[in-house]
């Protein structure tokens, strides 16, 4: 009997490709719902953080401790304490005060480049969200960047 192996291997190859593609889709492809949960958690944290800043502003805390004329003379310790006290114990934060597009005061009052500076030694993956709250009751408005992440 003479066999046409070409036809047989075409079928096996196609079946294998379908199998691999389908497996890849079901096993490795990102699922929209998981992405949405992360998005919701991040969005929720951002709204919560903005509420904290808005509450402190309405209670006069930012007015008391942000220097109206010279940002470097602000009470950074007090600002950090009041902002962090509103957060839950499962939320961690880092604060910076942007005075222009590139330069910021850190939460301890050091002047330098803007940006989150997490502990480099950590291997834990953080999903960090940033709240921007602009405080405008001074001649040069300052934007407070409040970085938030869960520490479950």
């Amino acid at each position, binding site marked *: *009997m*003479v*066999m*046409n*192996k070409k*036809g*047989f291997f075409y*079928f*096996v190859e196609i*079946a294998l490709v*379908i*199998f691999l593609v*389908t*497996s890849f889709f*079901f*096993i490795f492809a990102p*699922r929209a*719902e*998981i992405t*949405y*949960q992360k998005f*919701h958690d991040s*969005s*929720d944290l951002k*709204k*919560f*953080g*903005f*509420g*904290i800043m*808005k*509450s402190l502003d*309405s*209670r*006069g*805390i930012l007015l*008391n401790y942000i220097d109206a004329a010279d940002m470097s003379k602000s009470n950074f*310790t*007090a600002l950090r*304490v*009041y902002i962090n*006290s*509103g957060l*839950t*114990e499962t939320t961690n934060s880092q604060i910076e005060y942007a005075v222009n597009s590139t330069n910021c005061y850190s939460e301890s009052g050091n002047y330098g480049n803007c940006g989150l500076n997490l502990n480099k030694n950590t291997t834990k993956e953080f999903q960090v969200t940033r709240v921007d709250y602009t405080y405008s009751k001074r001649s040069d408005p300052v934007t407070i960047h409040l970085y938030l992440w869960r520490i479950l």
Partner: protein
Amino acid sequence: MSKGQSPVEFIIVVFLFLIILVTIFTTFIAKLNPEIDKAKEQESCLNSDGLAISLLKAPGVPVNWNSSNMEIFSLTNGTEDYIYYDKWLTAKSMEYMNVRVKTIPDASFLLSYQIYAFKPKNSADSCPASGNATVVCRYNLTSLQIKALPSGTNATFNLKMFFPFSTATITDISSESDDIKTTSSANGTIVTLSLHTNATDSDLLNITFSQTNMIFVQSVSYKTAGTANLPVYLGDTSIVDSFGSAGTGVNSYCESERAVSFVDKTGEVFLARFSVLTW
């Protein structure tokens, strides 16, 4: 059978094809239920966000609704992110199912709040003297009293307060050796209490502090041994409370949390965390 194929090869191909089909089918079925749960979670998250908006951003209908004329439920009077305690109490008095049909969007929910910051007060709070409750009573700008009243059963009151940039001192008026009262310092004073009460035992403490413009309640709970929640008041306002359905969906609930201002019956404003759980 195709020309050029032997029966053995055909059987192998059919067998392989069936394996592929079965594998794909079982993989799909195995992932289907979790995916359905996640889709429901997504719907719950949309509902919890939507409910948070309708309760905190827009006034209800009518704005000053009461238990007999409520058409749309809201906790604010139109000032964004302000919750009014009298509206909260009215909703609780109407019971869950009567309120649920007036909510937008329509979803099962559990609402809860915890006051996390308040100011010292230069006049004494009006505080209940009895009942199964614990009361934080402000006396003046530099002192307050903690009253853990008899709870009818064994219960534990846990409270962690922070007095920023202030030195706080606990004075024991009436408590026992099993009641824990500690203070620690870090940019202020952290007061940690764990008070045990029962049918007859009550605990009384005074806390004096140097002047501060805000006092934080970092955590608070008053639970029986069976973990039922007992009320905790700041003056005559519940520090922590919840309202809604007792049960939640198994795998498809979602929570939205907001920082809000909380207005008590006298118009005093506290800072609070507000949570909307839907399913």
